[in-house]
């Protein structure tokens, strides 16, 4: 039974990071209806910036964590400004293809740096002895990561519910023309949506880097797993992303814990989310909490 609880705990840890990664993706989709295929690459960029600041520049990790969020905030904003601002009004299909191109470009840039190949791990800054209770253990890094994740998610929820900027973002996602008519600058909101997405991506990247170590391939897979998460949760629901993230984390841990090695199956944790994604697309395409839009001719 303690094996089961161990899986639950690590599932929740991984799942909450998925939720944080998916948050930025949902943000961009909600405000501008763009599927940002390059989101995983932004997460990776955030993680590498945190590492570079911590290890190479020698800044304390707490400071560099926040600093990298700020840097990625502006990076994502400039990506929107340079590449996507011109495409406002173009068909959505070409905007999506631009993000596919962006994914490739960021890949190339990362391969140019030493981060493209090899593994990096953050220096230990927390006690090494894991926290144990009722036979379930959890490392301090995971604990801190989960706490930061939930704080960030709470902060974002508050931001959307209460702050003026958040409300204007929601207004734009609801109706662009109506929000323009009451004086909201739609391009500015798009830029801000990308910037906040970058910020949350950097946070997710930093936490992933601390828990699993930095490897570009691993960060890649974190970027792609965002898709099953957002589809299960519903593309435009932040709450859905959080719930689905945790569900996905649990499913992966259970698959790795119970399916692998039995019946000749291996690596099921890598494929199960995508099979679930295809099934969800067939039977409940708007996910658990997504809005089923009524289309009018």
């Amino acid at each position, binding site marked *: 039974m303690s094996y089961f609880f161990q899986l639950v705990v690590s599932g929740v840890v991984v799942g909450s990071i998925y939720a944080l990664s998916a948050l930025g993706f949902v943000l961009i989709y909600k405000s501008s209806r763009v599927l940002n295929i390059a989101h995983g690459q932004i997460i990776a960029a955030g993680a590498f910036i945190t590492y570079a600041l911590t290890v190479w520049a020698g800044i304390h990790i707490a400071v560099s964590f926040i600093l990298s969020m700020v840097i990625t905030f502006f990076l994502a904003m400039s990506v929107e400004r340079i590449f996507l601002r011109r495409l406002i009004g173009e068909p959505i*299909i070409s905007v999506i293809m*631009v993000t596919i191109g962006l994914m*490739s470009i*960021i890949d190339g840039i990362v391969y140019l740096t030493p981060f493209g*190949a090899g593994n990096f791990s953050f220096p230990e800054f927390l006690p090494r002895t894991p926290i144990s209770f009722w036979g379930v253990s959890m490392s301090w890094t995971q604990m801190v990561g989960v706490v930061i994740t939930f704080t960030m998610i709470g902060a974002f929820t508050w931001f959307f519910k209460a702050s003026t900027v958040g409300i204007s973002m929601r207004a734009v996602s609801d109706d662009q023309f109506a929000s323009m008519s009451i004086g909201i600058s739609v391009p500015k909101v798009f830029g801000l949506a990308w910037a906040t997405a970058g910020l949350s991506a950097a946070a997710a990247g930093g936490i992933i880097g601390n828990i699993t170590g930095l490897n570009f391939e691993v960060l890649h897979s974190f970027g792609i797993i965002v898709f099953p998460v957002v589809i299960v949760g519903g593309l435009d629901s932040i709450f859905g992303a959080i719930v689905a993230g945790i569900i996905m984390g649990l499913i992966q841990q259970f698959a790795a814990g119970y399916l692998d090695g039995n019946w000749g199956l291996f690596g099921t944790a890598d494929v199960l989310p995508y099979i679930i994604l*295809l099934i969800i697309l067939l039977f409940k395409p708007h996910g658990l909490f997504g809005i089923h839009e009524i289309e009018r001719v």
Partner: protein
Amino acid sequence: MSENRWLATGNFFTSYKAEQRIFLTNVDKLVFACFLLLLFVWPLVFTVSNKNMLVIDSILIAIVAVYGLNLLTGFTGLISIGHAAFVGVGAYTLASFAQILGSDHVLLTHCWPLMILLAGGVGASFGAVVGLPALRLKHLYLVIATLSFQMIFQWAINFSKFFDQGQTIAIGRVFWFTGKVVRKQHYFFWYYVILATVVVLGFAVRNLLRSKHGRCLVAVRDNDRAADAMGMHPGFTKVYAFALSGFFAGVAGALHAYLWRGVGFESFMLHHSISYLAMAIVGGLGTLVGSFLGPAAILMLELQMENFAEFVGHFFTAVGDVATAFRPLSFGLVIVLFLMFEPRGIANWWRIARSYFKLWPFRY
């Protein structure tokens, strides 16, 4: 007034039938026939090294695959980032025959045209299954469906004992009427086979787009609700587009397997899907000419990038792997720059050049 079928300076169609012609003027027909003849004759006149022939063969195979992607993305407006997986389905159809029957079984070596068609059929059925969500969903969701198919494909090959965990599975040499195609003639032989496939399938695509079944793809792309009102079923049309694109991909995969005489996992990864998309975009989405120009341009760019990376690598040995970096970097840049500045692709340049010569010596 009887029209002059040799010269035309504008569109003077008097019937729908005239507008639907493949070749506008007889000059077009003549030029095309000469070009085709040239394509078939030149390897006999010049001696080409195996290395160059391999490049040309790869371009032609990519053209077959891009036909399919262009039908899906260009003509039906559904983005696919899993096209390499569909190509892989075609290749692995052959590989599974090789695994069960042995790589030199009669079916593989003698009945290869049949096997190529079969691979296309398997690709089509996989395409239809992945496209099933299209019955209910819009294109945004289908991007994710194709991506997840790519991931599932990679997993299925990587973790299955049957396919040797993605190790290369050999495919035997084929037989022609003159006997076994030996090593010296291999690339030469496949050049003709692939070229014939490209020509036949090119005419097939062109004719499809003239017919009711092709025009409904474009109608669904432009406005699916209007298409629905006109009596087409947008969902089935999209599934059918997926199946068509799967067929072309499957044929390309089978040709790939025969050309390289083996099927390996590393030819059908996510970044290959992205390069197919780059080919379609750079060539020009929704044009047939684009399906020829795009693969040629992108594969040439890839070759040049390899040379350039080698050159730069001499100076920056300390920095990460330059060769692996330049590939995604250049592809991404090409995709983004074309979408931003020339969304109609190289095919548009071709169109401009053609209309210039058509109207010459007049300006417009």
